[in-house]
């Protein structure tokens, strides 16, 4: 999987509320399929299906401990996806912060007490 496929798999896996709940449960410690099935009132095969999706996305891994197969949460894909989303959110937020600054300027220009001064043409900065 390349980076964008990895992100796609992470988001697809996280789109389901049961899988998010499983992940939240595993974030607090390892668990077997049995232990995971209990709080969700779901059959073991249904839980196993969700686990497979999470495992393919790299969000969980499994290992055997005293004949029990345990699942554990893996932070790496989440950290990567979050960092990526944060960059995106910040670029949108940067637009809105520019709009904040522009609105401040517009408010001053509208101020009735202050005499209106014709706005100077913006001086283009040379690159």
């Amino acid at each position, binding site marked *: 999987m390349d980076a964008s496929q990895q992100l796609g798999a992470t988001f697809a896996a996280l789109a389901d509320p049961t899988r998010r709940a499983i992940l*939240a449960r595993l974030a607090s410690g390892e668990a077997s399929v049995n232990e995971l099935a209990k709080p969700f009132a779901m059959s073991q095969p249904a839980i196993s299906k969700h686990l497979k999706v999470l495992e393919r996305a790299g969000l969980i891994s499994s290992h055997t401990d005293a004949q029990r197969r345990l699942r554990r949460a893996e932070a790496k894909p989440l950290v990567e996806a979050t960092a990526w989303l944060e960059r995106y959110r910040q670029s949108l937020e940067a637009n809105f912060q520019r709009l904040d600054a522009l609105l401040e300027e517009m408010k001053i220009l509208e101020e009735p007490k202050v005499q209106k001064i014709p706005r100077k043409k913006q001086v283009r900065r040379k690159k």
Partner: protein
Amino acid sequence: MSNPETLQVTTPSDREIRMTRVFDAPRRLVFKAYNEPELLKRWLLGPPGWEMVVCDVALKVGDRYRYEWRNTSGKQFGTGGVCREFAPPERVVCTEMMDGYPSESLVTTVLTEEGGKTTLTTTMLYESKEVRDMVLKTGMERGVAASYDRLAELLPTMEKNAIQS
């Protein structure tokens, strides 16, 4: 998010994505900043290095609008559509078709004012859940940010675990 003026992104239904942002200005000014090309070009820019090179706005029902951006290495991106409702200074509904995307969305922007502050709510409605999810999956901007809150909820515990293991 503790600062109420930062951008919030939610998914109100399985075909929608919603962004909410508060501005410390009356809505008449926010509306103006959204609809006058000279003003739009000063803030609607996206990542650093991009500038808006085409800004044809829609000012009545039936008008077409078209926005295009270019970055320093010459890459270009555009979006456009048709205005369906135009009710200054509170409500605008437009269709939107981004370059390179196969289907149209319906974008509803509502401005409400209280105590001199304006809340902007933009809701994007997609053709189907599949299209909305594709937007989420392929990482198309707004959609992607919608998952952010979910991820943020999980992250602190997961990082702790990663350090321990």
